[in-house]
């Protein structure tokens, strides 16, 4: 499993050897938050890099700029920025997906914390013809800003090329997700998370080539006994591989609704549209993310479909403390499951802060949840077999 080891290695650090190599050849790297049209960055001949805080162990510097009721992801991220861990980036694109992330832009701007290209991409929170028109203008503005600052030209052809490359990544990841429908799946959720982290921190060509190799290697791989409990996890930002490992001690995560998950790979950009910017605007507003107003039904339906398609036995909803989007959505999911009309499966609700412990308590909850699933399912595999240590 050399390819998988490569993905795992890349996922553990902010910077990696592939970025280093590209940088030594003069390629620029642009950091970004959430789902922004990374195709534009690629069309400018640069590498899009999704922001993370995987190396973070503290938030002392982040605490200077953030209050106690801010989400721990941007807090950890800003801490890493101030530690100089993202000095390899040539620019940073922030979007108004939530106020905590947006505040990171404010802090960087106000405190002059970001040394080079800093950009705010305003995305709409509804899908209407007007909002898509507005988003197209925003994407074009972003394109012009990149062109002007880096003295490059971003042509329609280059954007189309980038779209095709990114679509290929999405398709390959989609194939990987298809494999998770098997029982037992040949890959664990923690490994998928590592792959997602790596794919958003590698030049796309490297990511695509590695994904192709990986897909051929996974044939016949066994990671967990047949009949093991299958879980779906729904959360916003989740980058902690060890946390996934904890969840998957006696189970396997087969489906997700994560930023580093389906929300990255679902919905291809339409390659047949004449105007690629138009295609991008449509794709990036079509993601069923809690930041979108009026996407509630869509989100519930997506989760319900995935539970069925991936044959999940239970749903874990996990939100970061102070993440309002997910706190509200979590509450709605709880209500929905209580009613049992549109969504019906065992549910476990967890709350966490990025990179903090309390493993014992999480472990107990997960173990009890699996016992609950087992009780409900009356599986042929006994509880004791699954939980023996």
């Amino acid at each position, binding site marked *: 499993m050399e390819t998988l080891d490569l993905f795992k290695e890349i996922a553990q650090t902010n910077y990696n050897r592939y970025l280093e190599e590209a940088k030594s050849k003069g390629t620029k790297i642009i950091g970004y938050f959430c789902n922004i049209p990374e195709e534009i960055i690629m069309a400018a001949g640069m590498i899009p890099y999704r922001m993370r805080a995987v190396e973070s162990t503290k938030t002392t510097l982040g605490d200077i700029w953030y209050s106690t009721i801010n989400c721990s992801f941007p807090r950890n991220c800003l801490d890493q920025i101030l530690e100089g861990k993202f000095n390899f980036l040539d620019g940073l694109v922030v979007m108004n997906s939530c106020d905590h992330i947006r505040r990171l832009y404010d802090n960087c701007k106000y405190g002059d914390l970001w040394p080079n290209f800093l950009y705010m991409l305003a995305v709409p929170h509804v899908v209407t013809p007007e909002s898509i028109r507005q988003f197209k203008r925003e994407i074009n503005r972003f394109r012009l800003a990149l062109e002007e600052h880096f003295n490059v030209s971003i042509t329609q052809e280059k954007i189309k090329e980038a779209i095709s490359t990114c679509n290929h990544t999405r398709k390959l990841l989609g194939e990987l997700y298809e494999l998770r429908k098997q029982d037992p799946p040949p890959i664990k959720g923690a490994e998928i998370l590592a792959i997602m982290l790596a794919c958003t921190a590698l030049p796309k060509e490297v990511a695509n080539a590695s994904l192709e190799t990986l897909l051929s290697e996974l044939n016949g791989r066994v990671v967990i006994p047949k009949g093991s409990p299958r879980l779906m996890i729904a959360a916003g930002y989740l980058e902690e591989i060890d946390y996934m490992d904890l969840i998957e001690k006696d189970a396997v995560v087969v489906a997700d609704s994560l930023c580093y998950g389906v929300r990255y790979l679902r919905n291809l950009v339409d390659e047949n549209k004449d105007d690629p910017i138009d295609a991008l605007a449509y794709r990036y507003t079509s993601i069923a993310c809690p930041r979108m107003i009026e996407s509630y039904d869509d989100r519930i339906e997506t989760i319900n479909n995935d539970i069925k398609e991936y044959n999940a036995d239970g749903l874990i909803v996990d939100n970061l403390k102070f993440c309002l989007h997910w706190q509200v959505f979590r509450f709605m999911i709880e209500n929905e499951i209580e009613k049992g009309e549109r969504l019906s499966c065992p549910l476990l609700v967890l709350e966490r802060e990025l990179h903090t412990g309390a493993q014992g*308590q999480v472990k*107990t909850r997960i*173990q009890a949840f699996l*016992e*609950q699933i087992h009780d*409900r399912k009356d599986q042929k595999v006994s509880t004791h077999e699954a*939980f*023996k*240590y």
Partner: protein
Amino acid sequence: MIFAGCDVGSLTAKAVILMTNQDNKDPVVISSELMQVRPLPKQSATEIMQKALDDINISFEDIDACCSTGYGREEISFADFNISEISCHARGVYFIDPSIRALIDIGGQDLKAIRIDEKGRLLDFKMNNRCAAGTGRFLEISAQVLGISIEQLGPLSLQSKKNISVTGQCSIFAEMEVTHKLYRGVRRTDLAAAINKAMALRVSALAKKIVQGVPTCITGGVSKNIGVVNNLEKILGMSFKKIAFDPQMIGALGAALYAKEYFDKELPKQRKMRA
């Protein structure tokens, strides 16, 4: 047949030993013991199990199957397997009274509301979130401040004549509040009542959805505090079912029942495989 359950919590360790008849049916409790925990779960487990075994003059070798539960469940080497305390409480309560559909378990550092179905299977549960508010630890800290033992907290509160409240959400802040009020001359009986009421409020906020409208009982160490229980009944507008077993030992009892189940299901399989 002899089956053992060992529940090592954050503050106390419990052991229950069950005996069944020749057909491995009709389990009865033949020994049960409780003690304060030692620094290591393994130490506590071995000690408490030895005590329970000594009471009836049998040894470790006589145990046919053993299940561990509680905070230290993974550290207990003599157990054959472990089950979470949530399932064990459900199983234990159902064994004592099969008409019960929900229970509130208030332990040393955990607070759980558990819903079970008509066959004693786990349906849903809620647990406190990484904080000691509404757990035994809060009562322990408060009793210390009042200079009384934790056992006195319940009876003392019944003598209260004045209705005051402790509003601190967090155990530490609540402790400061109690200290402050004590210095200002508030009577200990009134403070004890306020502490129990605050505790009941925390518990009810978590448990309400799970226990509403179904026969419920209360287990864990805090269920021995009459003040908390009375307040909780008042807030939730229901009365708890009395159970004919030490409510603090329910987890260990559930573990012992799981051990019996394990013996019934797994061992014949293993023997078959060996043959």
